[in-house]
């Protein structure tokens, strides 16, 4: 760009640097530590959903869970790109991107390229692809603010957007994540807790059918821990599913008035 022909000067942010090294929010063996936002270990943040956020899209949803804000737009079913071969089932195309101001330091959070494919795998099992052969449904997500536990929020918001677009699905997909911090398990971690975690478990499930569409585990987990975490997360998914359903019901009753 001509206006910026002079080299953009190197800049730094005056915000205090993030702590590194020994975590300060808890010490090993200290069973009395409290989460930074005061929640219980098995308490999720309050969730707010709204459909119809973007008029230009076939369907869209906005989700705000704690400080994590996500908008998802769904376009389609529309014509597949010419390079694609004929397919008698529909195709799903997902893409996740972040704004530059989603993280406290500008431009630092854009390296989650795997979110797009993880979103794809989480939703694939729930969509009835046979209902739109030869065409593609595009699901685009934009993370407005990254406050922790981003991928589960993106997945839940995306399934609401798909419902808003009228794409046929077996069930909504609700998603929740759990962090392992030393010997404790905390559900729905915020970014600070995620930065100190030893391992994480993200589960996406269809609450009414009690079927899991995606389970991702990182770090070291004993079998007992996995079972415990899964149980807690599935319960949380059930509750999240109810919230999502009531959001959809509100939206339809509002339009019918």
């Amino acid at each position, binding site marked *: *760009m001509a206006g910026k022909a*002079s080299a953009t000067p190197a800049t*730094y942010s005056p915000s205090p640097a993030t702590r590194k090294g020994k975590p300060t929010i808890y010490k090993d063996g200290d069973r009395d530590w409290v989460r930074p936002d005061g929640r219980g270990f098995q308490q999720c943040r309050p969730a707010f959903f709204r459909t119809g*956020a973007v*008029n230009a899209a076939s369907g869209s949803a906005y989700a705000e869970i704690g400080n994590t804000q996500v*908008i998802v737009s769904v376009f389609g079913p529309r014509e597949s790109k010419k390079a694609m071969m004929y397919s008698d089932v529909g195709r799903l195309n997902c893409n996740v991107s972040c704004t*530059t101001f989603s993280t406290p330091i500008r431009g630092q959070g854009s390296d989650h390229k795997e979110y797009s494919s993880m979103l794809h795998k989480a939703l694939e099992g729930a969509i009835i692809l046979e209902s739109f052969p030869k065409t593609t449904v595009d699901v685009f997500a934009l993370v407005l603010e990254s406050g922790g536990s981003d991928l589960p929020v993106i997945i839940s918001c995306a399934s609401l957007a798909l419902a808003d677009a009228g794409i046929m699905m077996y069930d909504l997909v609700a998603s929740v994540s759990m962090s392992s911090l030393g010997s404790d398990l905390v559900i729905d971690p915020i970014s600070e807790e995620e930065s100190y975690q030893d391992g994480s478990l993200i589960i996406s499930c269809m609450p009414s059918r009690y079927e899991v569409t995606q389970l991702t585990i990182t770090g070291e987990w004993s079998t007992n821990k996995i079972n415990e975490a899964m149980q807690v997360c599935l319960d949380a998914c059930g509750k999240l599913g109810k919230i999502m359903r009531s959001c959809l019901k509100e939206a339809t009753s509002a339009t019918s008035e």
Partner: protein
Amino acid sequence: MGLSNVVGDLSLEMEVDAFRRLFPLRFYERHLSESIRPDGRTLKSARDTSVALGAVASADGSALTKIGSTTMLAAAKMEVMTPSADAPDEGSIAVEYYMPSICSPLVRPGRPAEIAPVISKQLYDTILSSGMIDLKELSLISGKAAWMVYLDIYCLDADGALFDAALLSAVAAFSHLRFPVVSLNDEGRLVMVPEEGNGDKSGKEVVNKEKRKLSLSSPPFSLTCALHKNYILADPTSEEEAVMETFVTVVLNSSGHLVSLYKPGGPVLTQTSVIQDCIALTRQRMKEVQEILDESISGMEID
């Protein structure tokens, strides 16, 4: 001609939505001849506009603006830079406009919108040439440190009049901008001082205690008008923009002076009266928009 007969017959039997999709030009011309638009507006009225300041909590200044369905989210973050040798007392501004894939069916991840870098450059040029911001206000330590303001504008929903909404959100974000309080630490870098009562515990000198916000002189406001044959439509939607022959964007500053005029191609304008009409419409629109902006600013200050 055979074709227009066919169209004439079809239009009697077809549903409105189908006619709108198949023959958009005829659909609009039918409305324009009655001096009305499909959404019920007159040719000269703009859509409902709203401005919400402070939409992004982590940014130093932010604004969410909506003109009809077009939604823009602007966030300004401030970082410290070393000023250049030939302007040691001036900071700098970087304006970037993004159209993420969510905003429109025409934008895809591998194929960015063609209009995005055009609008980005237009915004940058308009903001700088309007003289709204005095770069000397961004200076911290002469010759050593100055503020660099990164303004990022994201289009969340694209429904016409993108430049107008983006410019309004940029002006709103700048009026909401509050400088972080910084002091010099031992390594010669500027760090933020946490907001405390009086005096900071470290005993360090606060560099910019008094200067907390930008003084904006004559902010620019714009209006895009679509031109089609003899009609001038203020604030077109994306459907109207696609159908109309060309459009003109007029930018005025608050003292009523012309900052910029942009007409990208299309049929030749043979009468200057059309331009005069567009400028008059912009002037009127500017009053409306200024009121809306002032209301939301005063709303924030009461808090």
